[in-house]
């Protein structure tokens, strides 16, 4: 028995959950703007926010903390969390597999390969490309790498206008291994400092967030999140299989293309902004499915809200627990997510007796 109304219609419970999640996100965001290692009091943060950026009524360092550090980070965290969770839910629906993640359509391996290439070869043979871009070379490379590898995979898996999800999956594994090999070769070429840069980039984090990055990457992710409900009915139908989705009246191919474009854009932009942040894309949709419902009309917006709240919370912890240093955010998302997920899984298993 799945919880919800007695007749099995969980729409009301799902609407209620969305409202609760929206409230949660708001709460977490407010708290996250309020806390940090510098210990500004909450009323001071509110006053700084009210005064606007670039005010001269407060010390410039306080204004910078609230307006240039915390606010863009909280917004970026919310957008990335939403984008990753929605991308995860979309891919899982597309692959009909609750364990699918963006690595499967080439997004993360492609982004990682391009980023490592820029880190290692940026002063060498790639210098003419990399130097003019300055600090934007890495995010731009990650984004382009993600899109290129996804496009390549999509082309491989599409024959006669039909994309084979199974081929996509297998080719994704092969391409992942191949770009892993090239990445390994770059690691071999890299010096000590580059190695460390690569390690930290791989762990991901919002430490480098600026308004500029937010304005560059945010709209892509936001567009993907806002467009995702268009896919909801299609993903629901796809739960029964591709044939059934067609029988139910869906343009399956158009939907697959849209889903892949959406995921590549969202994850590519997130990787560009904050490196690879794992776990959010798998855990958030799964959690909502276990706890509330699998209907994608609920799951997609629900994942966006919960993913946003989770990442904002994780980043607030990353900024404060080791202060004045900062923990990589991937550690926090896994540390919060994994035990809760396991607990839910075990409880659920007991309930179903399987």
């Amino acid at each position: 028995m799945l919880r919800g109304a007695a007749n099995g219609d969980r729409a009301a419970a799902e609407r209620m959950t969305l409202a609760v999640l929206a409230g949660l996100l708001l709460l977490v965001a407010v708290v996250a703007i309020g806390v940090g290692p510098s210990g500004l009091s909450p009323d001071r943060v509110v006053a700084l926010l009210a005064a606007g950026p670039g005010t001269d009524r407060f010390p410039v360092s306080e204004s910078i903390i609230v307006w240039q550090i915390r606010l863009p980070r909280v917004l970026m965290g919310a957008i990335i969390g939403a984008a990753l969770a929605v991308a995860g839910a979309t891919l899982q629906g597309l692959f009909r597999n609750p364990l699918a993640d963006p690595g499967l359509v080439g997004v993360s391996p492609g982004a990682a390969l391009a980023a490592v290439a820029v880190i290692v070869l940026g002063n060498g043979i790639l210098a003419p490309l990399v130097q003019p871009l300055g600090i934007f070379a890495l995010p731009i490379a990650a984004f382009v790498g993600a899109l290129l590898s996804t496009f390549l995979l999509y082309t491989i898996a599409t024959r006669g206008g039909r994309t084979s999800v199974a081929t996509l999956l297998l080719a994704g594994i092969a391409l992942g291994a191949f770009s892993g090999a090239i990445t390994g070769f770059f690691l071999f070429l890299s010096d000590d400092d580059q190695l460390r840069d690569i390690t930290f980039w791989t762990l991901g984090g919002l430490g480098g967030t600026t308004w500029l990055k937010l304005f560059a990457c945010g709209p892509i992710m936001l567009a993907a999140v806002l467009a995702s409900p268009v896919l909801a009915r299609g993903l629901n139908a796809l739960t029964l299989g591709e044939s059934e989705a067609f029988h139910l009246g869906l343009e399956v191919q158009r939907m697959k293309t849209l889903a892949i474009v959406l995921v590549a854009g969202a994850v590519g932009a997130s990787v560009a902004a904050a490196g690879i942040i794992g776990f959010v894309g798998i855990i958030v949709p799964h959690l909502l499915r276990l706890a509330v419902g699998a209907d994608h009309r609920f799951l997609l917006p629900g994942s966006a809200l919960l993913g946003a709240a989770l990442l904002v919370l994780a980043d607030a912890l990353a900024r404060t627990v080791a202060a004045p240093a900062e923990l990589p955010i991937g550690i926090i998302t896994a540390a919060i997510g994994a035990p809760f997920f396991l607990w839910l899984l075990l409880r659920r298993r007991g309930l179903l007796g399987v």
Partner: protein
Amino acid sequence: MLELDAVEVLAGERRILGPVSFGLPAGGLVAIVGPNGAGKSTLLKVLAGETPPMGGEVRFQGEDMAAFSASRLARRRAVLSQSLEVAFPFTVFEVVSLGFDGAPRALTAGQKAARIEAMLERVDLAGFGSRNVQTLSGGERQRAHLARVLCQIGEAVDEEGPKLLLLDEPVSSLDIRHQVDTLRMARDFAREGGLVVVVLHDLNLAASFADRMILMRNGRIAEDCDPAALLNGQTVDEVFAIAMTRIDRGPGRPPVVMPHAV
């Protein structure tokens, strides 16, 4: 209502269907029978508009089927496939409501819920709405999907004409009573003016409900006639490569057949 003209389907070099040509008028229940690998499911996929024929043409209500969009097709025909796995933990209610999702109709949420509950009752799954569809038995799941398909197709005839219901082995997991119930529903749909094409293995069950039977062999039509004529003829024995014993049930009714060796 449905005409096939020299339809062929190839898998690589191998011909798996055709060429076949026949016409199916509205208001009938047609059973497709034949040995494994005879092309029954392929034929059904062609009729569903899912597999486009590589030769010939399928005309649905006077139009080339290839010209129908997926959503327009979904309003005129529904398909129950074999062995359906639901990938995520949907409730039975949610699975059935997918029938309303693909081709949107002007129904309120309340109306949909009422229809879904009525349909669940009709397939003998009253009170199953809140169950996780992944935990149902094979037969229960088959009936839940039947309810979904019936929700999708709605009335047998509307202002645009009769509709098409395609069922691929709809009774494979069902006990004998639910087999009969399911085929009764299919026959009701035909009586109301719709067209039903159903793939079945049980010759006697098929003969009891069908108005017409198509016997297939190696992708071709071996026999296309009324049930009594089919079961009384010798083609059945040849196609299935087994001698049949026939038990007569009186004039005008098809005989009961069973393999001779039993």
